[in-house]
């Protein structure tokens, strides 16, 4: 167990009502029986930035995502999305505030085609937002954008994992979120695809989206992230820009410790 590093202490305190703060996880703890999966974590994702959430396996990253999206109840702490305390809201209500996510263990609509996955999401968005958008046009645009045009009419459970992850990304984008949570989007992609994914994330942030990404590919994380949170044993041990995080001794210890 490591103590919070200097970088954490120096990180600015964010007001969850600040319009630039799209996601604010405040003092969240999760216990499974006797196991402390997340311990008093504070995580912030800002508008127009790619925020990284990294850490060794079992550090509590996916659990944190589940707490943010409402699939898991925290033992303590609050979650704010776009200035609203959503701690007591059902998952679908949180999503309607403009949040979408992908899953580490795939949760695609496997018996539908890639196109229909994205189309379904666009239809959901239209049904709850009543924005009058044309789901088919949205699906068309997004399939092009994430590079799935070629496999649009393949059933998703017949696609390789990497492409299925892109389907989840496209599905999330089809709801036009202001906050996008990506759980290991790069695993299963080859190098070219991974670079394209990085470019896309930077582009999305530039358009004003807040992106929070869990990723093991260090090169990808260092390239695309504006700020990085490091989780170890459920605790945020470090927050900072990529350069700071790489230099942090606690982070190095956590990763080296995990490898030996």
């Amino acid at each position, binding site marked *: 167990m490591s103590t919070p590093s200097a970088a954490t202490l120096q990180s600015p305190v964010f007001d969850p009502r600040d319009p630039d703060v799209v996601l604010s996880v405040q003092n969240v703890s999760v216990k499974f029986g006797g196991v402390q999966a997340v311990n008093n974590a504070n995580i912030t994702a800002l508008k127009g930035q790619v925020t990284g959430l990294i850490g060794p396996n079992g550090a509590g990253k996916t659990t944190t995502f589940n707490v943010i999206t409402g*699939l898991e109840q925290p033992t303590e702490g609050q979650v704010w999305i776009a200035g609203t305390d959503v701690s007591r809201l059902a998952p679908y209500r949180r999503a309607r505030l403009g949040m979408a996510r992908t899953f580490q263990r795939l949760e695609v609509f496997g018996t539908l085609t890639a196109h229909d996955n994205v189309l379904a999401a666009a239809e959901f968005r239209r049904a709850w937002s009543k924005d009058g958008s044309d789901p088919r046009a949205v699906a068309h645009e997004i399939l092009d954008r994430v590079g799935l045009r070629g496999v649009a009419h*393949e059933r998703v459970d017949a696609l390789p994992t990497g492409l299925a992850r892109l389907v989840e990304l496209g599905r999330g984008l089809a709801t036009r979120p202001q906050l996008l949570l990506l759980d290991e989007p790069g695993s299963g992609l080859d190098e070219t695809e991974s670079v394209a994914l990085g470019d896309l994330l930077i582009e999305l942030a530039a358009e004003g989206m807040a992106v929070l990404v869990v990723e093991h590919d260090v090169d990808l994380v260092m390239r695309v992230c504006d700020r990085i949170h490091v989780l170890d044993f459920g605790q945020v041990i470090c927050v900072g820009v990529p350069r700071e995080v790489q230099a942090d001794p606690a982070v190095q210890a956590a990763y080296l410790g995990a490898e030996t």
Partner: protein
Amino acid sequence: MTTFLALTTLGIVVGCIYGLTATGLVVTYTTSGIFNFAHGAIGMMGAFTYWQLSVAWGWPVWLSLVAVLLVGAPVFGAVVERVLIRPLHGSSVDLTIVITLGLLLFLIGLANVLWKPTEARVLPAFFAGATPLQIGSLSVSINQVLVVVVAIVVAVGLRVMFSRTRVGIAMRGVVDDPDLAAMTGVSPARIQQLSWALGSSLAALAGILLAPLVTLNILTLTLLVINGYAAALFGRLKSLPRTAVGAIILGLLVNYAKGYTPAGGLLEQLQPAIPMIFLFFLLIWIPAARLRTSSAAGTAAPTVPGLRQSVLVGAALVLLAVVLSQTLSAPNLLIGGRAFILAITLLSLVLLTGYSGQVSLCHLTFVGLGSYAMGTWGGGSLVGVVFAVLLSVLAGCLVAAFTSRLRGLYLALATFAFAKAMDEAFFLRELGEGGTLTVQRLQIPGVATESDAAYFLLSAVIFTAAAIGVLAIRRGRFGRQLTALSDSPAACATLGVNTNVTKLVVFACSAGLAGLSGALFGGLQGTVSALDFNVLGSLSLLLALRIGGVNTITGALFGATCFALFPTLQSHVPANLQLAYLLTGLAAVSIGRDPDGFGGQVSKLGARLRAVRGTPPSAPSPSTASRPELEEARLVHS
């Protein structure tokens, strides 16, 4: 006071028996993760076998007990585990439900073959001749004392076994973590087999103790043992002490209710259904399971025909029906009509189970409500159809609203409890035990529908229209939403879908369609009785659809045709051979090997034919063989 004491005694005795059956259920569930719906039937078989040995063949009591409890039941449990349960490791919850339901029906069918239901049998109580104990004004029979003593001995024995013996500790290890247990040299498969043997013995013991208190009747006994399921759920299918407490509460509840509910009125009507109502509410209060999917590999989704194709095939079907209506004999017209009407019921299950992935074991209840509405208020008018649909939709909404958080096994159990409770508290009361309700045939102004031929044609047309409608739903926005819900409820929720509403809507639609088929069914038969809507019928219905193929129209039609033909087949074999139960059960058990069913085979065959002819299928439907993850799933199955 005497009444109270007598009821309390009886409550504890019945509670002890519930405890025995529930304990067996929990032991098998915890080690194998598979809920044994056939547990009740195993208890029934145990009691009948014991009767056969001790009464019919005159074996001594002790020898008969040893033969049933220490030889017959454990061997049976071990064989079931080896043949049916072990291959299910890693398959979807739905499949495990279907397999054990199949076993339940098969055993009931088998019992009917072995022990003619027309013959009366009496299983004497143990120590029947002995004078009852007198405690003050209370008289307690030796048999009752025996039941309590046996239950206590079993409870203490299990406690010692799980805490002191190697085998018991190994069992607990397997429950906690099979892989870890395997590493310490314990064979999880062996332990699982042992627990099924133990579970079967406990079920048989409960059956033998229960039989003298009631009559030795196949259905009664099976359903009574099933009441014990509620106690197991009180223990959350995990804790044996909690299960015991649940069993005693249930026993007392049932007997106080029997003794104290005033005659007439709603309470009296609800009284026989108390165990199932208890079960239903226990399930509702079970802590919400996290929204996760477990379906690693779904069944192959067949190609969905387009509107043109479905209308063309539909027209051909109607034409065929026209020809048939002119040529078939009157009895065959009835069979044909029955097939089409059942096919409408199965269509409602295609919508619910096939498309949205929710299990329902109460669809015959909706059918029954449809018949009831048509018979009571409809009088054969179109308004009657509206009543039938509305009543079923209402019931469907109620079930869906209460069970919105439940999935898989818990949803299956809750709908099962609802069906059984409706059976006991509504149909048996309203239609009377052995009584019937007259239902008029639907009359459409300007169309003659009264004759068998015309009614057959009408059923065919309505089925065709419903099938085209269901396919249109499948292709459209709502269909995508249902598929999405079936494939990943968690993803749906994080995309802003209120999955409870989706479930409610699909449940209502499905119940409505079932209600419509009920209105038609009543008219076809002329009269309906409570037996037509028995909960076991609902099980057969789901199984028929699984056999046909759960998400295809072909599957619905095929399953319904088989089902409609059962009575005819039945007339060609000895009356005691309950073909409907035997065959459905057998076939359901066999689909453990091929979850796609008949309809899935047809769809695959079509795809293969198209491939041979060199034309690409209209929409890509990758054959199962080309999907590595399905390959893997198959390996696990076999």
